[in-house]
């Protein structure tokens, strides 16, 4: 079976971005969250709602039928709207669907929106699959990742303090992000306090709050037709989704799945890992950033911790890793998170990230992993 490279043959661009701040659960309705981000993205693109031909809403927690009641408040234009659920990667998959819709030629301007409000418990389907396991009810996500931290530290001679430096960096990045849920520079002492599980402390675990993120995706034709500012358009060079395969006993699935999804995305974009200037990865727990930096090929296995320590992954370093503050500081409201990564990378590639700008950023990557397990990677670039 042949595999076409749609995004190479029919260029797709991010032309507008918007966010509603990620925050603790509040009285704000999801409709308010969603339309705030959507209006902001339309304004940023310089278009109006009737220019948008289709919408995909990434959401995992709202229940059925969230899009129309929300987006019709921008005008009930009757366009096709679809909810997209892929656990933590829901917002990434909304972007992926928008890319596909534009690259296929069906639409020239599509909105990808991520929105969610936690409702107590994530209601994940794998727990209802009828597959009994010894770890059910005992090993929750933070312990799954604490166990990966234990294995990583033992294998590579890395200390808990070194792992915690991921959170030190990301909290510092988040402190200059007005949309972040956590906007405080934290001391190593604060980060190492309040143990949750293994080496993972409270500030090395992401906050799950509420928020929204939006990206307007357009074709060449859309940009021409609407006379959009081409200099601020960021191209999407790769959009790859994969699910967990069998990797052999004892192989970490999160890293293995990331490695093969990343490799497919680099191939699709025609670039090498070393070409990437700015990355937003699924750092729901601090150890994950080390595992994924290595799985994505930024450095050999076991070296990410010392590279973080020496500032190579800081804004202004070799490449900027989680400049938004990542899930650890910007937050992880589930549905919005993957779309929000595309918003941050677009901002960085445009050179509009203000105090947290990584100078000269030209190629960026977004990466989310979701329960199930699924992985979604996008590669973006500017000329």
């Amino acid at each position, binding site marked *: 079976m042949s595999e076409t490279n749609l995004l190479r043959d029919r260029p797709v661009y991010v032309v507008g971005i918007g966010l509603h701040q990620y925050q603790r659960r509040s009285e704000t309705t999801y409709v308010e969250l969603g339309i705030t981000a959507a209006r902001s993205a339309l304004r940023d693109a310089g278009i109006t709602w009737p220019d948008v031909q289709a919408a995909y809403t990434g959401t995992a927690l709202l229940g059925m039928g969230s899009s129309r009641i929300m987006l019709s408040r921008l005008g009930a234009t009757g366009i096709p709207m679809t909810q997209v659920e892929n656990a933590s990667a829901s917002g990434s998959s909304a972007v992926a669907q928008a890319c596909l819709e534009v690259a296929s030629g069906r639409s020239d301007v599509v909105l990808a929106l991520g929105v969610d409000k936690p409702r107590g418990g994530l209601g994940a389907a794998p727990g209802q699959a*009828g*597959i*009994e*396991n*010894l*770890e059910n*009810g*005992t*090993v*929750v996500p*933070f*312990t799954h990742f*604490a*166990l*990966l*931290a*234990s*294995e990583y530290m*033992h294998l590579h001679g890395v200390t808990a303090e070194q792992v915690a430096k991921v959170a030190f960096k990301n909290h510092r990045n988040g402190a200059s992000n007005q949309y972040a849920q956590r906007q405080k520079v934290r001391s190593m002492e604060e980060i190492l306090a309040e*143990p*949750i*599980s*293994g*080496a*993972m402390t409270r500030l090395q675990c992401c906050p799950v709050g509420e928020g929204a993120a939006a990206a307007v995706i357009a074709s060449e034709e859309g940009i021409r037709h609407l006379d959009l500012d081409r200099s601020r358009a960021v191209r999407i060079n790769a959009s790859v989704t994969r699910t967990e395969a*069998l990797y052999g*006993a*004892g192989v970490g699935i999160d890293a293995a799945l990331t490695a093969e999804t990343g490799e497919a995305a680099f191939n699709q974009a025609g670039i090498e890992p070393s070409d990437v200037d700015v990355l937003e990865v699924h750092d729901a727990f601090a150890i994950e950033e080390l595992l994924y930096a290595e799985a994505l090929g930024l450095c050999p296995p076991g070296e990410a911790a010392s590279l973080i320590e020496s500032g190579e992954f800081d804004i202004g370093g070799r490449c900027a890793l989680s400049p938004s503050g990542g899930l650890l500081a910007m937050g992880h409201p589930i549905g919005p998170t993957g779309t929000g990564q595309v918003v941050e990378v677009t901002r960085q590639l445009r050179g509009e990230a203000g105090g947290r700008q990584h100078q000269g950023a030209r190629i960026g990557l977004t990466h989310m992993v979701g329960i199930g397990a699924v992985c979604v990677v996008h590669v973006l670039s500017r000329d």
Partner: protein
Amino acid sequence: MTIQARHPHLLRLTDPPVILGHRCTSCSRVAFPPDPYGCEQCGSSCEDLEELDLEARGTVHAVATVHRHHRPYPTTPFTVAVIELSGGPVIKAIVAGSQVGVGAEVEGVLVQDLEDTEGNTLVDLQFQVVQ
């Protein structure tokens, strides 16, 4: 009051306890937990999966002591380990005591320290360093 396995489909309450996995008669893959649907390696249906006894013995690959838990059981702190069973599959289970480290050889023991809401005693599998 009765004594029941907390995971009746995963354990045989013998001494020493036995872990129940499956083996695919079509591709020979050995897996845990036993699956009611099919083989992830070759796609064979569950009729091709036969029950397989796995020795409750293995090597610790990772440990984490849990300080926060959203349920009454297990009570915190408790320690969880990733254990590669001698029969192949890798499992996660509670280990008794906090002295269990990476590389330790461990064996399964049955622990009765839990009551359900009807007052029945539930037996669970934990691992300890091989005596």
